[in-house]
């Protein structure tokens, strides 16, 4: 695998420009030129389809965690029939360890707005919703302001830039449920209902918001659309790992000296990210483990990280996933039992309660973990935990049960000695 030249990468989503969240500054720095090109340059973009093809060609793999080609997703939309069609932008961002979209909301909202407008044009969509998690109160207000500015400048609304393309753009705040980051429960929430994931099929492209064709994209994914249109699919593909190209917003947190969001190409070596980008482990401690992409991605031991890079294929080799690229770094003092209990607590708290295995399983996992954490666990509880994860995985409507089961299974199998040390000594003689 070729080493990625990340040191010379110039950020495009969060460049070092002051006050970029102001629309005038954004426009002065070339903002909304991609939208203008798409809407007015008929020689380059003869029809909406050409935009979809360009984005499909760029292979922007969805940055919300699933990693599905965004352009391909767009092409699933049925042909326009005159009725309403929706783009729902997912800014729920509630996976523990993930905080990349807030950087866009805060620092460069218009790059996202522009990308969403391009997506809407490409799919002949009439209404865009951006769903922002309830805890991001300040960003909801900022997004409202940014949208108002864009309306005032004529970037959103009727006949944008003199074209026949009209679209409306609304902000909706969540009410603090993790499950509403799941795309179909986000639709339920947008409709004002309880955040219960929907059974698929039908997929949102057929029956989404209010039963109409809907595409759901992550905020960062849509922000990348702007740069793909500006710089071309080839530029995007030339950045980072081959199978998972383009820049990624890495959110690095945990026991590092410089936690934060960094825009770098995909495929940066994990250890480079920790030791060079994020300034190394706090207090000169040693690295113990890494959760690469949000709490549901399996934890990886430090000793297996050599040569592993931040892209889906490389991470699969060590049994984990890229997820949202929200990396949690843990130093040698980290108690894995406590860590896992906290994760199980989170999923127990956030399970929506619709499907049996997840509703009951997440609670059971947490209660056993609490027992082990308090030193009252037994060795057999560890095997029971592993058993419960198989009872949950793949048997529910959405992926929350999987997300809750994986960390338990992989943390226990990868750090079993620590868990056993916390358990009561077995009363049975070991032969």
């Amino acid at each position, binding site marked *: 695998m070729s080493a990625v030249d990340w040191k010379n990468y110039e950020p495009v989503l969060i460049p070092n420009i002051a006050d970029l969240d102001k629309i005038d500054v954004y426009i002065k720095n070339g903002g909304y030129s991609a939208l203008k090109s798409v809407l007015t340059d008929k020689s380059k973009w003869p029809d909406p389809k050409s935009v979809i093809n360009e984005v499909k060609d760029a292979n922007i793999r969805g940055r919300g965690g699933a990693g599905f080609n965004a352009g391909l997703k767009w092409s699933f939309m049925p042909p326009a029939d005159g009725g309403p069609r929706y783009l729902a932008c997912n800014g729920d961002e509630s996976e523990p360890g993930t905080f990349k979209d807030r950087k866009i909301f805060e620092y460069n909202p218009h790059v996202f707005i522009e990308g969403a407008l391009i997506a809407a044009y490409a799919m002949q969509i009439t209404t865009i919703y951006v769903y922002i998690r309830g805890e991001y109160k300040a960003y909801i207000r900022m997004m409202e302001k940014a949208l108002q500015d864009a309306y005032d400048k004529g970037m959103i609304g009727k006949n944008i830039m003199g074209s026949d393309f009209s679209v409306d753009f609304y902000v909706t705040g969540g009410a603090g449920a993790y499950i509403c980051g799941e795309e179909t429960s986000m639709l339920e929430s947008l409709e004002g209902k309880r955040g219960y994931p929907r059974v698929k099929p039908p997929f949102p492209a057929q029956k989404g918001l209010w039963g109409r064709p809907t595409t759901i994209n992550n905020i960062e994914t849509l922000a990348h659309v702007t740069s793909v249109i500006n710089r071309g699919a080839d530029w995007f593909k030339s950045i980072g790992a081959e199978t998972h190209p383009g820049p990624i917003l890495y959110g690095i947190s945990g026991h590092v000296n410089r936690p934060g969001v960094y825009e770098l190409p995909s495929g940066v070596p994990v250890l480079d990210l920790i030791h060079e980008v994020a300034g190394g482990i706090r207090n000169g401690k040693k690295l113990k483990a890494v959760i690469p992409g949000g709490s549901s991605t399996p934890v990886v031991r430090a000793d297996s990280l050599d040569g592993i890079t931040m892209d889906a294929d490389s991470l699969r080799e060590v049994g984990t996933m890229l997820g949202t690229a929200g990396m949690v770094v843990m130093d040698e003092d980290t108690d894995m039992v406590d860590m896992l209990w906290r994760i199980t607590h989170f999923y127990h708290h956030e399970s929506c*309660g619709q499907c*049996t295995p997840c509703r009951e399983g*997440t609670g059971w996992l947490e*209660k056993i973990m609490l027992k082990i954490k308090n030193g009252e666990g037994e060795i057999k509880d560890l095997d029971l935990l592993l058993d419960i994860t198989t009872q949950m995985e793949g*048997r529910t409507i959405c992926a929350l049960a999987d997300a809750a089961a994986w960390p338990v299974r992989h943390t226990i199998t990868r750090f079993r000695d620590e868990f056993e040390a916390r358990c009561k000594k077995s009363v049975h003689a070991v032969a």
Partner: protein
Amino acid sequence: MAEVFIDGIRYEYEGEHRLLQFIQDLGKEVPFFCYHPSMSAPANCRQCMVKVGQPVKDRETGEYELDENGERVIRWFPKLQTSCNIMIADGMVVHTQETDDLVKRAQKDNLELILINHPLDCPICDQAGECPLQIQTYKYGPEGSRFEVKKVHKPKRVQLGPRVILDAERCINCTRCVRFTDEISKTHQLTITSRGDKNYPIAAPGREFDDPYSLNTVDLCPVGALTSADFRFKARVWEMNQTPSIDVTNAKGSNIDLWTRDNLVLRITPRYNGEVNDHWMPDEGREAYRLFNENRVSKPRQKLDNEQVNSSWNNAVATLLEQLEGVDKQDVAIIGSPHASVEENYILGKFASLMGMNQPVFTSQIEKGKGDGFLITDDLAPNANGCRLLGFEEKDSKSIAAIVKKARVVLLLSDHLVDRGVLSAENLADTFVAVFATNHSETTKLANLVVPITCAAEHAASYVNIDGRIQRTFPAKETKYTNRRLDFEMSEGRLDRYGTSFDNWITEDNKVDCMPLWRFMSSLAEESGLENFSLSSGREIMEEISELVPAFEGVSYEVMDEQAGILLQGVSKTVKS
């Protein structure tokens, strides 16, 4: 024809079918909780997991790809699928728990998870004995539980509404009750509150669950989470007899089951009839069980010196005969009833014509605006259409009052006209009034003679509903003169079948001293010298009706039982709902 393979057996099918329903219709079984054939399938209980695959087709030729043994190559779904929300497709291959160990394991795992926070209080739970969770656990569940930590505690004994009580701990969150209020009764009164293992159904804060169909959620509930405020703790289901019957509180004629123990009707539940009430019935109809038990007229009663006293059957026949013979035939008014069955009205009409008296008239009982277009109707009586088809003249209140006023003897069939406000005490003052009634009322109080007759729970008789469908009841409770072990129409529960005469669960107390109207009328006819009147059962009367009354041609108890009622053609559009 399209084909599907289930557990290695090939079935042909047409049209669209949900896999779970298709399997059930074949008489096979896959356990489930949240699915209901009349509502949407949310696939949230995850119990009906099966293994599903689709044969691989060659893209160019459209032929099935075959392996080296000449068998079709099957592409299995990577995960087990919930059979409730999968539509069967041509060539689909399905393995249920009978032929696949992984499916069996998944169903067992799921039951273990459902049960970890379930209180397992079956011994004090009303649902025990008719509880899908209990049944499926015995059949498909694990033998024990590995759950050794604390269960979740949730609200208990919550009065959701006037008729429904919630025990949230027993709830398994199948959302059937919520979907019922969303999709069937459309009141949207229930929702799920809270998240994860703490969630349970509830009405909005400050609102109560007073849906006119609320008790259907109690039937729907696959566990004991929703129980009927009225019926809870009254009886265990295995002690009761279950008898099919018809709702007689309105003109819809919802199909119901009467649940009796010791000859008391203890509860009423809906019985499926896709043409009438689907799986549902209004709450009002369930509360009618009291009418079958309470305030019953037992033994004939007669007015002596302006005071009603108990009489005997012989006396009742003799008194009525004396009155009828003492007046001119044209001075006898006979009033039929939309509340009584076709058979009862017919026998009254037959008596009138043989005696040369005026044909019976009747007045329907309508409460404008009560109907909801679903199962509640403006018409409060079950058989107004039956009276019309028998050729009885329909009169308004004023005409009925005039007829009564003019008459010297009035025969009134179980219609409480004074209570209804059709007649006043003055109307009846100078007349001899004989009432055939099931229950005491202001009307029977004023009568000179009260003849107790069997109610809808005590005889087999038919009713024509608002859409012209004739349906019939079965005797559910014994009277003084019937015997469960002799009458083959009567249901016989576990207690009846295995009890002995020394058991104390069957008492004489609840048997009412009443007779079917045709039995009394036969005695009366015999005494008045009429020949060819002897009719000994509802079945026999219906046979005669179908021969003599054109509107009832082809109607018989056998056909009604086979087809869940018969739609009669003679009901005019204006009469329909």
